[in-house]
């Protein structure tokens, strides 16, 4: 079964009227959600900064993965194995990936310090672990009921082996 790693944003989800709740973008597109469900899809999420989550998603068909990749704000990071490097990325793709990580809230200097000047020299495991190395789980939903204000501390993820566990599960 094909699988891939995605970076996916959260949106406001009206789970109950007296609580602010967020859910991954896939829950808001009935076509993609139905494709995921009927295709035997399975996914695990690891939350990270920037109101996003790193997702590993597996489905029976490539078409479902392509549909997920087309969701708003969603990026298919890679289909490679954890121990493979990202050396085949073009310079533009490397820049895009680095900008994606910076867009989560990580400082460019910190990204470069952690992953080096050429992200293509890093393994998938190293990059994914860096993406989930910090999280800011607290939020409030703004009065417009569509946007968030992130709140609370940014916390270090002390369980980076979760990337390997999720990878092994799917």
């Amino acid at each position: 079964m094909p699988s891939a790693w995605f970076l996916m944003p959260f949106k406001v989800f009206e789970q109950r009227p007296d609580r602010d709740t967020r859910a991954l973008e896939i829950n808001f597109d009935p076509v993609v959600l139905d494709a995921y469900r009927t295709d035997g899809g399975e996914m695990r999420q690891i939350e990270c900064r920037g109101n996003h989550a790193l997702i590993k998603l597996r489905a029976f068909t490539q078409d479902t993965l392509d549909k997920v990749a087309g969701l708003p704000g969603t990026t298919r990071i890679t289909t490679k194995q954890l121990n493979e490097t990202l050396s085949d990325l073009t310079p533009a793709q490397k820049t895009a990936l680095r900008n994606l990580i910076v867009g989560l809230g990580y400082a460019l200097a910190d990204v470069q310090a952690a992953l080096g000047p050429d992200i293509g020299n890093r393994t998938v495991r190293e990059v994914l672990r860096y993406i989930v190395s910090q999280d800011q789980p607290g939020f409030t939903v703004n009065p417009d009921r569509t946007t968030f204000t992130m709140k609370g501390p940014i916390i270090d993820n002390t369980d980076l082996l979760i990337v390997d566990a999720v990878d092994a599960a799917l």
Partner: protein
Amino acid sequence: MAFPTTSVLDTFTRADNASLGANWAGPVFVGNFAPRIVGNQVGPDTDSGNSYASRYWLTPVATGQYEAGLTMGTVGSARREIYTNIGSPASGSENLYALAETFGVQFEWGIYRYLTGSSTLMGATFTQSYASGDKFGLEVVESISQKAYYKAAAGSWAQVGTTQSDSTLFGGSLGFAIQENLAAPRIDDFFGGDSVAATPAPAVRPDYSRFPKSVLRRT
């Protein structure tokens, strides 16, 4: 692993009462109401329409693997939620995992994580219809998995939705909530606690009587 492995903590079979009794505390969330014993089941005490009545079992879990669940009583027009890992209840900074039905979409369920009061759906929602007498449950293996289960009244337990892998919550209490609605929504038998490990198979020992003593040597 089999589910469930625990027995019923409370059948709610007793005289009608505004309180669930000394084994329960609550509410789980700020602003929740108190559920009541009514007709040997549990129902809400008022009809706010948009809020919930909630309680948690006073004895917290003690190991790294546990479960909670309940029986659907009279279905009515209300939603139910099952909780594990309840921490800092009614503080505005609640922590817990929840198997919960979407308020506006009957039969749509999800596994949620509340962390310091912020609620996040884990993965995708799933659909599971139910009727009175059916059961739902939530199993947690700390740092490894959260799984939802369903059992039709005359059926057998099966996992519903997909496994989640959150690793942020440990310990805490078990509990439930029911949407406030006086149109007779009810829940019944609440079960849960630390998972009971399957009885290990007896160790297989070599039958030395089958061998002549000449081939048995001390090592």
